[in-house]
């Protein structure tokens, strides 16, 4: 049996699943003790829900290969990152995170947006 060759589509799909898995695994930081050695990212209850939604949407995007779904997932993550950036360190902090939460959500948002770009440009050139 020979391995299936890696196509641009399958690589985008793998990256989509990878980012979704990263979002899902990072929810575990909710349970991490609050010391610097373990808690790399500050995740509160609201952030955990957002990450769960991102993980599900991201996995759906990868499964269906729909460019618009990648874009929606990326925009949701980026919107959450901007909201967190505006609010953290202040009295009102809906997501309950800090700068590390901003960076993590921004990374996921950039990642999914990049996958939208690849899928979208591949469709246009077909």
């Amino acid at each position, binding site marked *: 049996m020979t391995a299936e060759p890696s196509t*641009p589509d399958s*690589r*985008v799909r793998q*990256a989509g699943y990878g*980012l979704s898995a990263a979002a899902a695994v990072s929810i575990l930081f909710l349970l991490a003790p609050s010391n*610097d050695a373990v808690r*790399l*990212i*500050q995740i509160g209850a609201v952030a955990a829900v957002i990450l769960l939604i991102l993980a599900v949407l991201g996995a759906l995007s990868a499964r269906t290969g729909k460019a618009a779904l990648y874009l929606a997932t990326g925009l949701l993550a980026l919107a959450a990152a901007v909201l967190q*950036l505006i609010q*953290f*360190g*202040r009295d009102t902090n809906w997501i309950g995170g*800090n*700068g*590390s*939460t*901003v*960076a*993590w959500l*921004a*990374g*996921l948002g*950039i*990642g999914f947006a*990049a*996958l939208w*770009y*690849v899928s979208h*440009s*591949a469709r246009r*050139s077909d």
Partner: protein
Amino acid sequence: MSTDHVTASPPREAAEELDQGRGGRIGLALLRIAIGLLWIQNSGWKSPPDFGQESETGLFKFTTYAVDYPVFPPFSWLIENVVLPNFTVFGYLTLLVEVGLGAFLVVGLATRFWALVGIGQSLAITLSVVNAPDEFPWTYYLMIVAHIVILTTAAGRTFGLDGLLRPRWRQSPSRVSRLMLRAS
């Protein structure tokens, strides 16, 4: 006296190829992601709006180390006369740079550019704190070296978005695509 003899230089030994197998590529991706996580965690304690200025803690405390325990006098002068009087602006800039470093290095997008930014930021941190009490200088030297490795190996091309996007950018004649090819 005859001068027509030609002295041929001895053949250079071909450089050994680096290991570009799966293990090597996974190792580079791990390094990039770990350094990305380092910056993500680091951006966690840069707290707006005053970044520790009033309580003399956090980013403010570490920035004043550059003046209290100088490493490079011109850098200390810059901190004392430019950065500290405009600390809120500097705090937000630091936060945004470190958020960018974390976000982009973790996913491996524009990795060479961000590795260059990481070298600059690590150098600034080194010049601020390396002479302060209880600091371990090699922490900062290793941070600089890790970014140099990420820069020189273009580590975003392995298990990163750069690897996925570079073929697209190569096909496009736009200026942004050419810029991204250089940055990745």
